[in-house]
């Protein structure tokens, strides 16, 4: 499939990369002494939906997994594929990742870290032929968002079941959101890297009042000033919440209702544009005043000088999780397991959270970050204190109660779902 002709204009990834305001992110990094994360990360929720489980019964998976893991040996090498700007970086050299250096010091495992994942769909399209042919894709860890492509990887048997015995830090420190998640019961195949919330970001000065509900995005006063996401994951699931339906339990009739809600909004001229991932600049500049937004983006925009607000609407919001998993035929699976459990130490999780600014899978990182803040001085201190108490990194219990997972879709449902929601933003 990879040899199919592409349009000769520009590769989509390239276009996307250029449309994301990386430079402002880098500035954020310099200003606050904090590292940052590309918007491309947020592409996490581009397509499809759902978070189904593995096709195989767990006991069978576990027994075959056990014999697999018993025969594995440490190799001292690890190939890690991740999204751009989704890990800590040293202040002087952005290709140097202190958390990885620590890992290499402690374990002797050398890590080749590649930022090759721009989008779930296109990355899946890239690795699928090799996985289907039973070949190694050259990576031992890949990071995939819960949703249709992760489901497919699990269902097709493209992932190596994890060695539960090696997940000591995970079971000791992982938060309830990422332990035993609905899309991967018993963490058979995945361990969370980071999570994020799709809520509403807005500029309080321009909107002139507080936004608390998805219904505020139907306010005629915001005509032409609302941004929505052009995808079949975040947009439909959020719209379902807006019409008072839990996405996980929604029926086709509900989808129609959600679509009507979205059409009403579009036809009233409220929506300026359905964004892919380039919404944050227009939001900071005032082209749009309120928009669907990913939590980490808003935090980072504020770190580079914007004064935006992020809310988890009253009706609720969807949470997405990017997951580390080991593809089949990985050359260094034991080294991969070692690393995946390594990042579940609160200290390491804190280093990552301070840089990435999405929701850390390790709540215990908060205590470490508070200590770091107490020990720091000057500008760094304020920034760290801010981070350590940020509800965007450590959601409050009140917010957490209102978070939902994407609707799980069967292939037939997916076709229906897409035919209902795609025409809304592809207009």
């Amino acid at each position, binding site marked *: 499939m990879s040899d199919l002709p592409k349009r000769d*204009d*520009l590769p989509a990834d390239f276009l996307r990369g*250029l449309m994301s305001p990386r430079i402002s992110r880098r500035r954020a990094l310099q200003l606050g002494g904090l590292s940052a994360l590309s918007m491309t990360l947020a592409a996490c929720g581009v397509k499809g939906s759902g978070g189904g489980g593995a096709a195989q019964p767990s006991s069978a998976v576990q027994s075959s997994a056990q014999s697999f893991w018993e025969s594995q040996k440490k190799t001292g090498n690890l190939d890690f594929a991740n999204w751009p700007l989704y890990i800590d970086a040293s202040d002087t050299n952005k290709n140097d990742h202190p958390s990885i250096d620590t890992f290499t010091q402690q374990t002797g495992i050398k890590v080749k870290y590649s930022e090759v994942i721009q989008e779930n*769909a296109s990355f*899946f399209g890239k690795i699928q032929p090799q996985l289907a042919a039973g070949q190694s894709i050259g990576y031992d860890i890949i990071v995939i968002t819960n949703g249709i492509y992760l489901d497919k990887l699990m269902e097709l048997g493209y992932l190596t079941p994890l060695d539960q015995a090696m997940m000591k830090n995970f079971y000791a420190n992982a938060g309830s959101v990422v332990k035993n998640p609905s899309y991967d019961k018993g963490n058979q195949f995945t361990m969370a890297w980071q999570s994020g919330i799709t809520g509403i970001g807005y500029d309080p000065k321009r909107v002139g009042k507080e936004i608390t509900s998805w219904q505020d995005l139907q306010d005629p006063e915001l005509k*032409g000033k609302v941004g929505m996401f052009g995808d079949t994951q975040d947009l439909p699931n959020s719209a379902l919440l807006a019409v008072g339906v839990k996405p996980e339990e929604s029926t086709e009739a509900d989808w129609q209702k959600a679509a009507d809600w979205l059409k009403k909004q579009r036809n009233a001229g409220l929506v300026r*544009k*359905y964004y*892919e991932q380039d919404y944050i600049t227009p939001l900071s500049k005032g*082209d749009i005043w309120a928009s669907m937004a990913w939590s980490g983006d808003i935090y980072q925009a504020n770190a580079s000088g914007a004064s935006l607000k992020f809310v988890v609407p009253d009706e609720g919001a969807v949470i997405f999780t990017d997951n580390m998993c080991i593809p089949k035929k990985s050359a260094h699976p034991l080294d991969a397991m070692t690393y995946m459990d390594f990042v579940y130490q609160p200290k390491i999780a804190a280093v990552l959270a301070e840089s990435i600014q999405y929701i850390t899978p390790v709540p215990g990182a908060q205590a470490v970050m508070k200590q770091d803040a107490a020990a720091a001085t000057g500008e760094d201190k304020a920034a760290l204190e801010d981070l350590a108490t940020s509800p965007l990194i450590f959601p409050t219990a009140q917010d957490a109660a209102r978070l939902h997972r994407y609707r799980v879709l069967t292939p037939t449902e997916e076709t229906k779902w897409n035919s209902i929601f795609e025409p809304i933003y592809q207009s």
Partner: protein
Amino acid sequence: MSRPRVAARLAPYLLALPAWLWLVIFFVVPTFVMLSMSTQTGDIVSGFQQTFRWRNYVDGWDRYHVQFIRSALYGLIATTACLLIAYPVAYWIAFRGGRHKASLLFLLLLPFFVSFVIRTQSWNFMLADNGIILSPLKHWGIVGESFEILATPAAVIGGLTYNFLPFMVLPIYVALERVDPALLDASADLYATKRAAFMRVVFPLSLPGVFAGVLLTFVPATADYVNAAILGGTNTTMIGNIIQTEFFTNLNYPMASTLSFILMAGLLIGVFAYARALGTEDVFGAVAGR
């Protein structure tokens, strides 16, 4: 038959061989793969099977005819705008450029040294609601507070016009450059007014250039997706954006191929109809720069 004569006869074919191979490998083969893909069914997970489902074409048109028609319309408007802007520019450079012709042409091409996407993205910056152009206009009350350009059809068509303008200027310039100024003197000697000389001598002679320019502008403008993606909003999606989404996001290769073929067929029909209507025999020669 002696050896040198055989070599001499084969030489042109051998020289043309790289070009043929190039075309076969990178155009003919992919086109066939795509044609075959366009009638397949299935999905990325279970794979695509050839089922000769020609109904894919009906489905594609049914679902996306709005975007097809919109693309053709945007392409037409942008091409017309390009023509109206480009002709005087080309005329001026060809007849009034004098010894600065080369510099003027270079200036025209200068923006091309910057990436297409970045140039388009910079429009986003300039035309922002509170950007460097609209801010003062709003401040002086020339346009209303709620006036906006970005995310409107005007922005997309403007972007297309801007990005493809040189494709229109250059062929027209080449055609006008070849017009012998002595013809104008001859027209004057025959009591033609300047206007008549232009309408009856210069303009007809430049038609091959106009034809080439229209082709070079209309075809890529209609198939473009960058401008709509960066400058567009709701109800400005072009067919290129749909194909891009089907290919890269939905991984629905049959639908993407089907739509590409409908687009290609539409453009080819349009171009041939246009060539017939214009009635110039050697129009394609003009495209080739002859």
